[in-house]
């Protein structure tokens, strides 16, 4: 029983983890992206579509990265070089993603592909088998998380990126190209969010359903705050959230007395709770929010 819970938790948490990591990279550069939901859908559909026509999961995943990165670059260019409002542009991206995937995905509804399979390393060892018998994308997500943490805190490009998010004037003064860095962060981040979407349509439920991300993108936006902009804490947040979302289904199936509506709303109640808790500790010195998050950069606009 516990093994099953661990297993569903990891599988449900992984797409959210990808989305959260992607969002953190963007926000570290100072760009808020409320288009995560839309990007996940674009990743999910393009992953499914290219796997369907080429029969190759690898091509599917690559297409998901490329197409969502391309969609994300719209947000990137708008909010950097064109100094657009980040909130409006992000919301537009979500609406765009939801709409275009619903339209272009019509022919894919009801089609089937062979989803990504698990690796079978060990047999029936409690605790270990649900952890070690996952598919490769689960392990890649954790590897990616470590890589990104290393990149942000142990490389000069990562340091530059954090500086851009904290104080773009200081960054510019040090000869760092602020707009380019932000665009780069948004494009890379969007690609990773797209992978999260593709995980849904190629691994979790190998199908295309309209609006299949079902709010996971929004949850990722909230988890960025929960994890205090730290990719390592994003792992905890994603699994916690994924666990609640997936296991409430299991509870429903087992037939408890708790009304279904309450069970279904658990993940969202949890999101609200998370936001309340993380804003309560807002005044602590450990606040990690990039200082210039959400502010467009204009060199000649200094006060």
């Amino acid at each position, binding site marked *: 029983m516990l093994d099953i819970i661990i297993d569903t938790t990891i599988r449900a948490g992984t797409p959210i983890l990808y989305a959260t990591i992607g969002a953190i990279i963007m926000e570290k550069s100072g760009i808020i992206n409320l288009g995560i939901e839309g990007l996940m859908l674009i990743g999910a559909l393009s992953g499914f579509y290219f796997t369907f026509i080429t029969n190759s999961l690898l091509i599917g995943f690559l297409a998901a990265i490329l197409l969502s990165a391309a969609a994300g670059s719209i947000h990137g260019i708008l909010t950097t070089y064109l100094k657009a409002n980040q909130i409006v542009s992000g919301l537009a991206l979500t609406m765009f993603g939801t709409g275009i995937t619903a339209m272009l995905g019509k022919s894919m509804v009801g089609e089937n592909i062979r989803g990504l399979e698990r690796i079978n390393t060990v047999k029936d060892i409690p605790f270990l088998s649900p952890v070690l018998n996952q598919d490769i994308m689960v392990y890649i997500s954790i590897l990616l998380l470590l890589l990104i943490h290393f990149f942000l805190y142990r490389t*000069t490009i990562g340091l530059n990126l954090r500086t851009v998010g*904290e*104080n773009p004037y200081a960054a510019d003064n040090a*000869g760092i190209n602020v707009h380019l860095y932000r665009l780069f962060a948004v494009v890379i981040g969007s690609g990773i969010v797209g992978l999260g979407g593709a995980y849904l349509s190629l691994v979790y439920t190998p199908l295309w359903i309209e609006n299949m991300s079902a709010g996971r993108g929004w949850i990722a936006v909230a988890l960025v705050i929960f994890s205090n902009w730290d990719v390592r804490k994003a792992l905890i947040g994603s699994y916690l959230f994924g666990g609640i979302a997936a296991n409430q289904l299991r509870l429903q199936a087992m037939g408890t007395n708790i009304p279904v509506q309450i069970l279904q709303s658990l993940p969202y109640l949890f999101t609200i709770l998370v936001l309340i808790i993380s804003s309560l500790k807002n005044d602590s010195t450990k606040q990690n929010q990039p200082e210039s998050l959400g502010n467009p950069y204009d060199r000649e606009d200094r006060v």
Partner: protein
Amino acid sequence: MEKILELKEISKKFGNFQANKNISFDLYKGEILTILGENGAGKSTLMNIITGFYRSDDGEIYVNGKKVTLTSPKDAIKHGIGMVHQHFMLVKNLTVFENLLVALKDKRFIINKNRYANIFLNIFKKFNLNIDLDLPLWKLSIGEQQWIEIIKLLINDCQILILDEPTTLLTPQETEFLFKFLFELKKEGKSIIFISHKIKEVMEVSDRIVILKKGEVVSILNKEDFNENRISHLMVGTVLKNKYDKDVKPSDDLLLEISNLYAKNDKGLADLQDFNLVVRKSEILGIAGISGNGQKALAEVLTGLKDPYKGKISLNGIDITYGTARQKYIHGIAHIPEDRKAMGIAPDLTVEENLILKNFKDKELGGILLNRKNINRYANDLVEKFNIQYGVKNAPVRLLSGGNIQKVIIARELSENPTILVALYPTRGLDIGSQEFIHQTIIEHQKKGMSTIYISEDLDELFKISDRIAVIFRGKNMGYFEPDNVDKKTIGKMMGGIIKDD
């Protein structure tokens, strides 16, 4: 001597405003050259052009005899030009180490901490600085932060160092230390451009002075021609006074009494600690101190923007420790906030609307619906009385100049004759004309019986206007002085936490 930097006919316009006009001068190797001018004379614009932040409309720049085009700060650093900006270009949430590393020109992809830490520590040692590389930057004092800014230039081997108003935030002791250091750098053959509006200190450090006025060079003086009155005349057109002659004396009656007050800041650290203060009726009490020592908390607690967690404030014997901003205003406490654009005004509302923001009781101006006619009449009176200059009617107040915005705030705050005014850095960033106007207005109201708590970091200003000066350090009142019986050095020491030695 060799010329290291030559400026030829530099001009820059912002819209219709001519910020710099045909500016030409040379900088020699190993000299300290000061650019002196009022706020708004075009000093900062010029420096931003030299460091590649702005592009000039016209003119040429030569470094070491070669013509250069500077399109970004990166270009400037490449040519050995670096600047310490008035608003530091530092990242609060990064460590000292990371702040220095960001600025370092050549570095590898993967950070080898020991290697770079050694480079930085060597420079620290050379100048006898003791700063922990792993501290987050916000924990450093302003003086220390400035050191980090200067060291950022040294690690990149800059030959031309530009310091924009570096002494504004320093105690007199820290300033002295800075000057010693500048002489040291000069000996090493570095050239320094020093920007300031404080004539005395400029005469102390500079080899030559370039005086700017309204965007143009009015004069270039050599060391032997330095003369305070002459410089002051060239810079502002008048000789500046050291003290106002006031024909009003504070009374002996107590007005405001703060006892054992404690307040915390947003980070949960103490802002005010066992703070005591007494203000008499019709007194201008100056509060000296380096910003960040609790001044803001003091103003906010007094005006009801923040609650203290211990202690007592009484006004005319009435306990007003707790209360909203509205209640305290009605009690007669007016406020000139620190950040005039963010806190003093509603930037997108008109001048008229901003002037009536605090008229809570006045039914003439409107109850539920606004009475536009009365509002305009009321506002026009204030506009005339305070000489507020604004172009188009109904234009948002944010389009006004800093001095006029400040006049709008003062007009509003003083319109209902408060008993006490809490002024937090009221003249920061204003030109001398507007500064004088604000001082005179406060003195005029002093005659009518108003008291003022005048918080400033500029000792010259405090000596000019205050009846008494209290020094604040780490949230504590270090003691009172009468400006006539004390020198700036003593106050400077206390601003740095050293208690009166008698």
